[in-house]
């Protein structure tokens, strides 16, 4: 058979080209995978994909059983499982398409080599090459499979959910849920609905929080690092260790502890009254404005040491001559900070700031462990509180009120916000361009 025919056959019969070039085992494995995919699709997959269009039609309910003369419970369709297995089928199909493309290119390569009279690896050599030229297949298999199963698949599932009405009123198996298009987005973004009047304030607070948390920690950490690293300070290591303590303690512990300290009867209120600063308890976490300041300040307490450590590393890279000459010119320490330290830091750390900003928009831990989004308010959709960020609200929607569609919608909106900031970061830094520079 000539090369073209074999090549064409291999589009349909995976591995044909490889088998024709002597890589029989490899060809057979390819073929086996293709056959098992086709079997899966014929037996289950096609049906799953068909169901995906409707998300189930039979509602669970009571039906009259004529043979026995009684009403019986009939199991209905479970929209959630239909959606999930539909997603599995989609992901399997995508994986198969990628595999199919791979077999074709592998076959072409084998044919080309055979034509040029070069040696084609036999199976044992192929396996051996996994430790050498093809090491990527060995090392990336775990991440690819892992991410595929536990990240990509769930993500697609949740993204699709944003276009359904899977909320607290449509809970499987009792009820079906259905496709609703972009209705969730419209409700959330642009109606006078309570959801929308919750969403915008929560988004606003998320942005304020993100900027406040990032920049307080950034400047606080930078100033602390400058103080510790200045020449006149002795025992630098001791000072650094003191601050590193707060960082080393797992965040959930220190946050829970501080949350209990800030309570109405917590130690802060006790001490403030004992010391005579105030006559009655201060509403650190129970008044909306107080709570918002409290979380920013506590975040400052936790975040400053991290920035301090990071900045310490960078400060040492600033050429000392700059400071020497500035000193000779009679610059004050503040002047040196403004003209030398800060511009340098700002330049080097812009990508860090932006990733930090995105991290803070999604800073679940600080908010959830400190206030859990409280104080609650009647102005908001059920469960959302005045210190809730989009992420904590999302979490509450999935965990407490089972409004999965809304949670998924918010998740997509968070993605869009993060993506915008990331794009800004990329256009500003040339990290991507430089990457090839090293190789």
């Amino acid at each position, binding site marked *: 058979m000539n090369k073209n025919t074999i090549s064409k056959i291999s589009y349909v019969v995976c591995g044909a080209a490889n088998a024709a070039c002597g890589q029989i085992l490899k060809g057979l494995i390819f073929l086996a995978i293709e056959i098992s995919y086709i079997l899966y699709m014929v037996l289950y997959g096609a049906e799953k994909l068909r169901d995906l269009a409707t998300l189930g039609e039979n509602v669970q309910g009571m039906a009259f059983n004529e043979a026995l003369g009684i009403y019986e419970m009939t199991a209905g369709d479970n929209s959630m499982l239909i959606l999930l297995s539909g997603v599995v089928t989609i992901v399997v199909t995508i994986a198969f398409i990628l595999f199919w493309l791979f077999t074709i290119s592998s076959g072409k390569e084998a044919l080309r080599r055979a034509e040029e009279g070069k040696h084609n690896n036999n199976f044992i050599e192929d396996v051996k090459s996994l430790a050498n030229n093809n090491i990527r297949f060995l090392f990336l298999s775990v*991440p690819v499979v892992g991410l595929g199963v536990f990240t990509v698949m769930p993500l697609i599932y*949740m993204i699709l959910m944003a276009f359904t009405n899977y909320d607290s009123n449509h809970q499987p198996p009792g009820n079906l849920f259905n496709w609703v298009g972009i209705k969730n987005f419209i409700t959330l973004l642009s109606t006078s609905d309570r959801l929308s009047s919750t969403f915008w304030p929560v988004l606003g607070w998320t942005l304020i929080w993100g900027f406040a948390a990032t920049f307080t920690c950034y400047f606080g950490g930078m100033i602390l690092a400058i103080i510790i690293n200045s020449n006149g300070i002795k025992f630098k290591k001791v000072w650094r260790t003191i601050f590193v303590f707060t960082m080393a303690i797992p965040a959930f512990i220190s946050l829970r502890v501080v949350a209990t300290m800030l309570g109405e009867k917590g130690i802060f209120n006790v001490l403030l009254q*004992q010391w005579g600063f105030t006559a009655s308890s201060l509403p650190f976490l129970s008044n909306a404005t107080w709570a918002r300041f409290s979380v920013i300040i506590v975040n400052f307490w936790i975040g400053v040491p991290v920035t301090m450590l*990071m900045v310490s*590393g960078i400060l040492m890279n600033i050429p000392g001559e700059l400071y020497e000459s500035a000193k000779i010119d009679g610059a004050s320490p503040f002047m040196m900070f403004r003209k030398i330290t800060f511009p340098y830091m700002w330049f080097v750390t812009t990508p860090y700031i932006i990733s930090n900003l995105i991290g803070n928009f999604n800073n679940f831990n600080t908010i959830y462990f400190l206030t859990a989004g409280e104080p609650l308010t009647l102005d908001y959709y059920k469960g959302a509180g005045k210190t809730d960020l989009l992420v904590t609200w999302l979490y509450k929607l999935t965990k407490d009120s089972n409004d999965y569609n809304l949670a998924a919608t918010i*998740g997509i909106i968070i993605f869009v916000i993060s993506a915008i900031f990331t794009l800004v970061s990329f256009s500003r830094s040339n990290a991507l361009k430089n990457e090839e520079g090293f190789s």
Partner: protein
Amino acid sequence: MNRTVIGLNLKYFLNSIIGAVVGFICLFLPYASKDGQTISLITGAGHILAADNKPALSIIIIFLILFTVLSLALAVFNIIKTTVVGYKAWQCVQALSTAFWVFAMFSTKTILEGVGVYSNFLNRYLTFGYWIGLVAAFVTLIYIMKVTQTDRGYIALTIMSVIWMFPILWIVLTALREEPGYYVGYFFPKHLTLKNFAALFAEDSVIPFTKWWINTFIVAMFACVLNTFVILSTSFILSRTRFAGRKAFMNILMIIGLFPGFMSLIAVYNILKGLGINQSLVALIVVGVAGAAMGYHISKGFFDTIPKAIDEAAIIDGASRAQIFFHIILPLSKSIIVYQALGAFLGAWSDYIFPSMLFGDKQSSYTVAVGLYWLTDFRRIDAYYTQFAAGAVIVAIPIVILFVWLQRFYVEGLSGSVKG
């Protein structure tokens, strides 16, 4: 005054003297005033000395006066004969004096109520005599430090250290406190005990803390080894090899990373259920390993800085890629290995959301994070607060030791993340 003394910067000599004098004068100015009754620090001290049962904190006012006077005395001494030793001594005294001026703000209520001068005292009844004195104390200290050419950063560092250590001190003291309960009206425990720690590990304990600790340790050890390996091998591939789809793979990882992670936890839970490993530690380990590759950036950035020529030389010598990874790259990357392992280990101890969702009510499978959070629920907090604190201390101690010990690597990784 045009004297010069080696080691001193006498430009600020006069300022420091004036500061000390102002501080001294403030002792006689009105210190507190309430309901028409005004006292200065000196008359206040008179009340204290006359009182029958003095509160223990009264010593603060006494020391405040003592050190302020002493500071003035040393100022006079330094006018007569300016020496480095004299100034250093003055600096010490002034530092103590400043400290007591600050302490006075926190103890005035207790003292003045204790000796019966006022009742229902609040700090807003402190008058200008006190506030000027406080400012004068700090200003004097700063000028003295300028004269002795000591870094003023010490003042800021001392104040910040106290603030930063305060919650930590509180949790340690609570862990050692004998009196149970969340609400206690004092900072220092009345009785110290190790009972709380013993109760956590007791056989008949209501809280299966030992189990939690072992669970977390198992997960952390697996995470430490497996996650680190996955991250390093992924970074190695992405940094040292070139293949079709590499850029696409990196872009996909970046896009996935922009979605909030726990948005899909419900689906992950259902998948785990389908696989039959929900509610078990295996699930925690598997999901951790599966997602580990997402954090490849830092180690890839590090691998990028190792010259490629090393690889090329090794390939010419007949080394395989696997050998390059295990025998060349890894030995060169000690700091990044420690950084990743430390991160994975710590992550397992503080991960809360996923385990809490995974284990639900199954307390025996909890990790310490879930368990300790469960203890601070409002229904349990009062009964278990001291034990929660003890648990927190037990969890924190090994981590703090690890962290302080391996700090250097952490800093390297952190600054690497900025550059990379």
